[in-house]
């Protein structure tokens, strides 16, 4: 299995190409459906943080889900069963790194599936896919 990994966040220039790439998986423009986010750490001159699911082997979001909608994924992270999800937001609060994004249009979580599409659009070597497990 592969997981998305942040190789060197200091190389990030804040272009957010990854954020837009993620939304394009659904064929949309904008960022409402993106599972990855880039923000400055208190002023752009200090650099950026890239927030995305890091594929925990024992994911707290899945442990917290009251309906069993989040199932641990082989190799780390989770798979969301949107039919079971009631949009309670417990998973979002359970993730200490803030990597459970929220889709306000459907009121359901957005969590990285580690497909690697964003990596193709990172021009400065911040992101990479790595083999796990």
């Amino acid at each position, binding site marked *: 299995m592969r997981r998305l990994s942040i190789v060197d966040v200091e190389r990030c*220039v*804040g272009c957010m*190409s990854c954020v837009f790439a993620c939304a*394009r998986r659904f064929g*949309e*423009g904008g*960022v409402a459906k993106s599972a990855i986010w880039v923000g400055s750490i208190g002023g752009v001159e200090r650099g950026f943080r890239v927030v995305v699911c890091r594929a925990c082997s024992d994911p707290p979001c899945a442990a917290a889900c009251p309906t069993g909608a989040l199932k641990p994924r082989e190799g780390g992270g989770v798979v969301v069963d949107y039919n079971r999800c009631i949009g309670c937001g417990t998973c979002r609060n359970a993730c200490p790194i803030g990597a459970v994004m929220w889709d306000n*249009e459907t009121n359901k979580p957005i969590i990285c599936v580690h497909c690697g599409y964003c990596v193709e*659009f990172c021009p400065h070597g911040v992101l990479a896919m790595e083999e796990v497990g």
Partner: protein
Amino acid sequence: MNPKDPLRRVLYIDLSRKKYWVEDRRDLFEEYMGGVGVAIKLLEEELPRNADPLGPDNAIVFAVGPLSALYPTASKTVAVFKSPHTGNLGESHAGGRSAIAIRLAGYGAIVIKGASEIPVWVAVHGNRVYFRDARALWGMTSSHTVGRIIREREPGRGFRTIMRIGRAGEKLVTYASVITETYRHFGRLGLGAVFGSKKLKALVVSGRGSIPVVDRKAYREAYKKIYDLLVESPLMKKYHDLGTPMNVLVLNKLGALPTMNLAKTRFEHADKLSGEYLAEHYLGRRLACAHCPVACIHLAALREPYVDEPYFFKTTFIGYDYEPIYSLGSMLGVGDPEGALRLMDRVDKVGLDAMSTGVVLAWATEAYEKGLVSSDDLAGVELKWGDYEAYMKAIDYIVEQPTEFYAALARGVEYAASKYGGKDFALAFGGNEMPGYHTGPAAPFSFLVGSRHSHLDMGGYSLDQKTIGKSLSPEEIVNKLVKEERWRQILSSLVVCFFARGVYKPDIVVEALRPLGYEYTVEDLENLGKEIHLNKYRLKVREGFSLDDLRVPRRILETPTPHGVIREETIRTMLDIFKKRIMAELGRV
């Protein structure tokens, strides 16, 4: 256009009545696409004839376009307003996160009118607009502090832009800038003063929406194609590696780098101001505007000791680009890179346009040398080429205006020279201070007739550099420049950064627009570019612009260019050709 695209929504904000509303302006976006094409029409609607640029009747329009937030390098916002600096059409573009924030907040344009009685900042979060009390921020020394405070006070996950003014805008210096995301600017023509006159300290916009496209598959394919072209293009690499300061050595070698108020075109310390030197010794971080893989923004990390305590340092990040290096470096004879960086930082703190400030100070230095002004006029500041400490003080005085002379400098070099003499070496074109290109005859012609008085209108500086050693007829120059300016109207209606113009060729633009539901042909785009250009000229003429009374500063005819000495006759001939053509097209023969 795609009927589901929120681009057609225009947000109107009335500062006098503290009201806001949204109008569906599909009419304008269908006809003029977006960006500057739509902005000009909105300004024409809002601006009463001969309105005072610093009165409540002036309007500010910010606009983005169909490609904003959908394609890479479509990262610029266009601002149009009536300029307090020239008294005519003002247009300025900036990147940062502004374009993406406006687009993802669900708007194609934002119109700001009226004036507040007390200082306010306005926050636009999606569909909500808030008027916040900015009295505690008014008069603050540094625009950076203002940005930090607002950043902490305003909620809003997602893309957020914080456009703010410094003291210069509050004090209505006619070339005050609006700063966005600390290192980008609506620099030219005084948008900062218009903000100040409306008591608008800042405009915050945040958005995190989505934009539907018509053909998802084609959209992804077109995106990938453009993205690959961008990251593989050599020009883009240059902008990323050294950024715009790569031009310093190029122009110096050509003898086109205005130095010491254009007495010279080569600067003995150019190597110390070069992109290469700055990158090697000071480059601390490179940044991108939102949705631009290029990352051309270069920040110097300037480490300075405090004199009162050993081992006590501060490190300041200072954005540098070719234009401020020219205007605050070579133009003022400042060859110490740290001195030039400090001047850039000061100009940003108070919120002035770097280019106009440098040219104004260069003129003031020469005027003082020639005895046109006294030490008293200068409030005791001994202006001298290369003395950046003196220039730091003078920048503060342009803002605070302790003497009549500084009050005159605060209105630009054209005005100051009309009061104190020295017009021959007052380097303004159409009332706006010159940019850093003494490349040949096409550049000054383009500064004179470019529809927003910017070197970026027509790219005259670029044509000059490409044609060294060749002699183009005045007719050829005019035709090439007009063609270029008209295409640039399309780029600034999409809105695409001009740095990516080599990638966004007409056929690529057609391909990018198609999945979004636009059926433009290359010919349609060319016609639209012409129409937008003429719309601008129509508005300019309405507001009193005339091609008959344009002043050519004598200095540019004295100092040789890489094309030799420019003859005034050459420029006048080009002006005649241009005038005949534009007036015929406007139906005013």
